[in-house]
């Protein structure tokens, strides 16, 4: 099990809450998230995959990629675990900063097993704030284990089905 990085909990960013109040809804927490990771952590026009959370080493795509075995987590912090590691079967979370309205579709194998997709502007799993509930996971959690560390390909798609996160 990939450990969470204790060093991240030492990085306290300015917490800017939006006006929306935190709601509890049927067991799910819907909260206004503070200073977030959009632009700086996944540049406009990119689809980003992360070694762990949104502040961890990452790789950015601006096009489809059929095989992650020649991609490496070379962006983001170079002094953290994961930096330089291969992306294939190693993606822990994913974000989409598409400016073309593209969804990110991730596959276990290109031409084969589909895993999940992420809508434009959305982030599947990874956020960080000071929250008693998530203090054990200061930078948010990874994708569920049946989706985590399985992606080997990314296909950019237009507006498709309603299943994207």
């Amino acid at each position, binding site marked *: 099990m990939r450990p969470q990085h204790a060093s991240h909990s030492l990085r306290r960013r300015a917490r*800017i809450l*939006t006006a*929306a109040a935190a709601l509890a809804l*049927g067991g*799910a*927490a*819907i909260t*206004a*998230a*503070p*200073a*977030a*990771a*959009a*632009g*700086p952590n996944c540049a*406009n*026009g*990119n689809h980003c995959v992360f070694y762990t959370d949104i502040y961890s080493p990452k790789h950015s795509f*601006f*096009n489809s990629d*059929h*095989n992650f075995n020649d991609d490496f987590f070379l962006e983001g912090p170079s002094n953290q675990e994961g930096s330089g590691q291969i992306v294939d079967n190693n993606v822990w979370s994913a974000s989409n*900063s*598409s*400016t*073309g*309205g*593209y969804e990110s*579709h991730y596959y*276990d*194998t*290109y*031409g*084969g*097993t*589909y895993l*999940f*997709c992420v809508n*434009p*502007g*959305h*982030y*599947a*799993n*990874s*956020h960080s704030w000071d929250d008693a509930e998530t203090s054990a996971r200061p930078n948010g*959690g990874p*994708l*569920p284990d049946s989706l985590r560390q399985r992606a080997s390909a990314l*296909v*950019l*798609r*237009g*507006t*498709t*089905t*309603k*299943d994207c*996160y």
Partner: protein
Amino acid sequence: MPFHPPRLLLPPLALLVAAGAAAWTLTIGQGSGPVRAAAPDPARVAEWDALPPLYAALYVRTEADERTGTAQQRLIVRCMARQGFTYHPPPVARAGDRTLSRPTPFGIEERGQIAAMMEQTVPAERPQGEAYGRALLGDPDKQLKAATGDMDVVVPAEGCQAEAEWALQGDGRLRRLELRMRLGEGERAALDRLSRDEEFDAATAAWRACMDEAGVTAHDPADLLRAVPEAERRDSHPAIVADLDCKARTGYLRTAYTRLAALQRQWLARNPDVLPAWNALMEHEQRAARAALDDPGTTDSR
């Protein structure tokens, strides 16, 4: 998950039933060579309406979905234009498009599937300035989060993308994400139980035995696909031809999907609130999309 790379052996494969079948030597890493004979009709997944209920709810694209996608794009075009930007929306997938992404936990299901999937391409992202990105995706310091026990999704609070989602989904925007995640839990729970299902186990064993006779060793169809190098991954690859043939001979897909459907129904019975709530939000979205498309102010400026 460990897998055993396919082992392709001499001599001829018994599965080649059409005239002209001949022996060939197959080794992973070499070219696949010509396909000498057509395999029997592969077992196809039954028609769309026989998909397991969670897959039917999430992955079948209807005309209403098509309208929703079109409406969303028009709202974004209009919003961006108000701020002086030209937004070029990507294609909206058509209703009934069979090449759309959906989970195929049992690997390849029909001939030509790989080629069909590989045809789906869109142009690369165009570089855009920061102001454009801000207009579309909003202030990066303003985000909202929907979370369940299993995962969370963070979305922009502002910007044209967010505004279009608000317009169509209303107050249900975050609730919709939460429900999608709950349905995802159902997908995973059913697959997990399937891995311990006796009938499914027996079907996989029969498939493995058939594949073994054909000289291919693989734990299951998904493993088989992973073991075929990407450069060789095409519908005519002998291992993939054998896979489809064995699925037809053993009725594998029918059994697998029947069992998966039963397990998904069980999950829905244990969590009866989720799908009705999801359907209600979908209906709301579709009504809003219809209204947006009927609104003369929502011009199609593509």
